């Protein structure tokens, strides 16, 4: 499907549960409520006409002024040659969301990375632990208000001036 046709089809499929951005530049995307996150992803991945079976990229972005973290999933279908960007927003304090790892196994590691770098927990994730940073590291580096700890196990993390 062309991207316009896909957008029309998904609008028909999901009805009023979707919100579309119409940005001046860059990619168009669809935002859904975090309660619907898992179900909508499941629908889009398994629906015959969408068949978005490939989770191309999954990541988060911190927006402290909105007090929210945005999760962005880039999905794609090899058979239909179309892709869709799905987003949801969760609060920064609670920062919990349902896991997508049952739908796309690739999400197991992507969610570990989001947990590690942005401090978002995923319900029912099979193996939620830090992936890039050491297990005993303090804080989540990709949060905009992150302050790096001064020492790690007695080793200074910055060079002396």
């Amino acid at each position, binding site marked *: 499907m062309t991207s316009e046709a896909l957008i029309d089809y998904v609008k028909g499929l999901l009805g009023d549960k979707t919100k579309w951005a119409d940005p001046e*530049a*860059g990619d168009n995307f669809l935002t859904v409520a975090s309660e619907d996150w898992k179900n909508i992803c499941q629908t889009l991945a398994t629906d015959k006409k969408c068949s978005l079976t*490939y*989770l191309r990229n999954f*990541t988060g972005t911190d927006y402290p002024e909105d007090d929210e973290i945005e999760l962005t999933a*880039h999905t794609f279908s090899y058979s239909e040659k179309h892709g869709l960007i799905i987003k949801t927003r969760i609060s920064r304090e609670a920062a919990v969301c349902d896991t997508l790892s049952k739908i796309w*196994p690739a999400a*197991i590691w992507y969610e570990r990375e989001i947990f590690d770098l942005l401090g978002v927990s995923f319900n029912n994730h099979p193996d939620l632990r830090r992936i*890039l940073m050491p297990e005993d590291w303090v804080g989540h580096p990709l949060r905009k208000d992150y302050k790096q700890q001064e020492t790690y196990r007695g080793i200074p993390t910055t060079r002396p001036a």
Partner: protein
Amino acid sequence: MTTVIRELGDEQRELVLNMGPHHPSTHGVLRFVLHTDGEVMRKAVPEIGYLHRGLEKIAESTTYPGYVPYTDRVNYLEAMFANEAFSKAIESLSDIEVPERAQYLRAIAGELNRIASHNITIGCITMDLGAITPFVHLLRERETINDLIEALCGQRVTHHYVRIGGVAYDADDNWLKQVEKFLNHFEAIIEELDNLIVYNEILVKRMADVAVITADDAVGFGLVGPNLRASGVDWDLRRDMPYGIYPKLDFDVPIGAGEKGTVGDCFDRFVVRVRELKQSCRIIRQCINNIPDGDIIGNVSRKIKPPKGEVYSCVEGARGELGVYVVSDGTEKPYRVKWRSGSFSAMSIIEHISEGLMIADLVAVIATLDVIAPETDR
């Protein structure tokens, strides 16, 4: 973590072994925790992050043109592609036109980089399985490519050649002749490779039917590039979502056929890479024959401020789709940059496919999945 024997109850025990972080076959600093029963593994759990350099965090405090040299460091074997993916993202956000000559030069430099990277991979696969000689031969060929790229842009590994809006330096006719001379020499080497190692019986036995990845698993875990194609999924970004000059070029996409065993086994992943060498040579020849005169960089201002918005841009690198997700808030610095790399997804499937493999087979799996530690850790 030290080696321990874990009691599982019912007189069942398993030996938990550490492989790495420093191990000759792990291609960089990474660690596997092996749960073994004799020589057979119950599972192998990869532990990554030893080479995490915070490339995504660094982007928040760097300007757009200033970040391009950092992209060289995403993967030291395919710097051209990381440069290109990031430049392409900014070009599409800010509507920058890339001159045609620059697109040809990107394709030539990229395919040379792909050959160099595949040389290392093919050489490492054979070396990890016990044959040192092919590695030395292939490393010699890669040296010539490094020399060529050094003549083009002054750098052998971290090229910083592809810039936002075009490329950094023009190539003269003499350089193009040198590339052609190298191709004449290298195409004979590809034939030699077939005779020397590809169908070597010991190598085939070590790889055929080992660690089969089905097409569904490959797509589900997000494998890309040669790993995906080895599982029988006919997909190449250069052909199916063409960018740059690729729509004008004619080339084939080799896919896994189960030549010596099952589709998606280690041998398929190995042989797909060998076949890609020839296609890259074809692409470079076409580019050299058709390259037009003209500018090498578009109209790009010194300060780049893309409009508010976000973009996901990807290119077909040596390890498949190398993507970058860039969020712009309208300032000089990116709000968020995220790298999507082939090695990261390849690493994530290892725990899933490792059950029942021999420890020695894990070496074949890591080598044929072409996992590069800096690319997983970023």
